[in-house]
């Protein structure tokens, strides 16, 4: 080192006490890592959840828990509450307060990815665009979301068999194979994790499974009368609908309405407790980092009193010693924060990779939020808190007394 300044001097002093420095660095890093992990992960989950629910004002399904209804139909995280009569779709579509009704028939999956019987509106709602192939035109044709295609290795023209239920290992519908006709580009929504087909396909799979002869007109008519859907995604034509529609739907014996915005808010409140707890722990860790750094700097001061006195003797004004000590605290805090920030994002990335095998959540370590600026502010505050009193003591070094000892 050819040039000495407050920063290089502070670095040398920190390196001289390598063990203490490492401990404080780690303490600081753990606190900031937890903070940035919580910030990044909760922001991504919230954004993802809002994106998936965007434009869907009401979900209509079978009676049951509204939260389960939302989780199963919008986020595809839970099992459906049951089925509803096909007639409900037409009934809702006629209502002038309703702009759009998207039908969904759920129940099967392929390789852990849900098979959703729906129509082209559903794909359009999430701005899905084909990367290859075409949309489904006939029963038993399927379009794969980007992630579902990538993970299951689906290619155009390939056939596959859906299995009953939403987890792997359900009973396979061997008699009714699907054909892959299209693959979608990534959208960053729930669409990426789905296998899409027409409602008729889902019906057909279960007809075959139940041994119904579609060529028998009487049986077919009886079937058609009992056709069912799982849920309907509803978009209002007017905000006024929010007042009357849920009540109107809930008044019918077979139907249950759930408002995604309301249920999502409820869910975030539940998750929010966990987030707050994590944040609180992180704050405590940061506080102990500040304390530990303070103790380290303060104790080191006793040892370095002669160093400081000799610098004064060599002509350094007291302010120089003050800034030297401050630089030490700030450097330590900022280096710890930088390390923690990297660790936090790495942890989000690792969690994202682990979870992506379950097709539940999309998390990436490369997502940064503006709130993370506050981490730097927090780090600076911790550094200042830790270094201020030692710096003031350094400022007040009594040269004559120290050198005469």
């Amino acid at each position, binding site marked *: 080192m050819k040039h000495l300044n407050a920063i290089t001097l502070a670095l040398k002093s920190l390196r001289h006490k390598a063990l203490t420095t490492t401990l404080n660095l780690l303490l600081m890093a753990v606190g900031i890592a937890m903070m940035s992990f919580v910030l990044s992960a909760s922001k991504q989950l919230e954004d993802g959840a809002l994106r998936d629910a965007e434009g869907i004002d009401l979900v209509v399904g079978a009676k049951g828990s509204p939260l389960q209804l939302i989780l199963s139909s919008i986020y595809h995280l839970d099992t459906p509450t049951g089925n509803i009569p096909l007639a409900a779709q037409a009934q809702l579509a006629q209502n002038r307060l309703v702009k759009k009704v998207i039908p969904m028939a759920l129940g099967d999956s392929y390789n852990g990815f849900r098979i959703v019987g729906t129509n082209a509106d559903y794909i359009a709602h999430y701005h899905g665009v084909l990367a290859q192939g075409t949309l489904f035109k006939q029963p038993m044709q399927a379009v794969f979301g980007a992630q579902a295609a990538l993970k299951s290795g689906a290619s155009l023209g390939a056939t596959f068999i859906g299995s009953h239920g939403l987890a792997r290992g359900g009973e396979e519908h061997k008699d009714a194979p699907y054909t892959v006709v299209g693959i979608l580009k990534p959208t960053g929504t729930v669409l990426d994790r789905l296998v899409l087909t027409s409602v008729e396909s889902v019906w057909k799979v279960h007809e075959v499974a139940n041994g119904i002869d579609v060529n028998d007109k009487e049986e077919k008519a009886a079937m058609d009368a009992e056709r069912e859907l799982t849920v309907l995604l509803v978009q209002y034509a007017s905000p006024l609908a929010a007042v009357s529609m849920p009540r109107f739907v809930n008044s019918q014996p077979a139907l249950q309405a759930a408002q995604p915005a309301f249920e999502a808010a409820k869910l975030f409140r539940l998750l929010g407790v966990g987030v707050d707890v994590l944040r609180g722990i992180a704050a405590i860790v940061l506080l102990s980092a500040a304390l530990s750094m303070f103790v380290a700097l303060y104790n080191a001061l006793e040892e370095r009193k002669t160093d400081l006195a000799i610098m004064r*003797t060599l002509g350094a004004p007291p302010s120089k010693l003050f800034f030297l000590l401050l630089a030490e605290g700030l450097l330590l805090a900022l280096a710890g924060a930088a390390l923690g920030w990297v660790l936090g994002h790495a942890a989000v990335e690792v969690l994202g990779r682990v979870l992506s095998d379950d097709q539940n959540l999309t998390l990436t370590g490369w997502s940064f939020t503006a709130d993370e600026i506050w981490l730097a502010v927090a780090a600076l505050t911790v550094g200042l808190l830790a270094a201020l009193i030692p710096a003031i003591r350094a400022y007040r070094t009594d040269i004559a007394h120290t050198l005469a000892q």
Partner: protein
Amino acid sequence: MLNIVQLRYAYNATQALYVDAFHLAIGEHAIILGPSGCGKSTLLHLVAAILRLQEGTLQVAGTDVKSLTPRAADAWRGKTIGFLPQRLALVRSLSVRENLLLSAFANGQAGDVARADTLLQALGLADKSASKPHQLSQGQQQRVAIARALFNRPKLLLADEPTANLDDASCAAAIGLLTSQASAIGASLVIATHDARVLSALPQAKLLRLTVSLREAA
């Protein structure tokens, strides 16, 4: 170089340091002699403007020390005074060369590496420039402290008990080194000591005895 007239410094209500008159011309060396606790260090600290003068006149290298504000005193000290403390006070986290460059940093100047290496060479420490102080012998550490005191080319080199822990041979060598280095940059050397060996090693120096300098305050 040094002009002291009726200097008085009270430690507390009962104890005070008093010097009636002392004068040192440019290039002359001085020895402040007296037993431990007689105020030798205090006098050195007053000369270096580390302690603030209370009464009397103290002129160092043409500057009336009393007229300096605390901030100006720091800058003045960095330029004018070279200080060799008894405890040496080398910074343990810095290498030998960096300990020298610390003088420049403290004084707000860019570190002159060539100057540091020349000084280390002259003091026979050229191969130790990258070592840490704890890797050196006591004598080597003292030479580093001398080099550091000389780094900013002071007009006055103050040494506090430089021979306290040295045997006779090292004592003569240390005094010889201090005088030759001080003369090399045209500085006056002031040694505070209770060691009579310094007197014989530096016969030409002016003597200031502080034998009865701890006085009852009037």
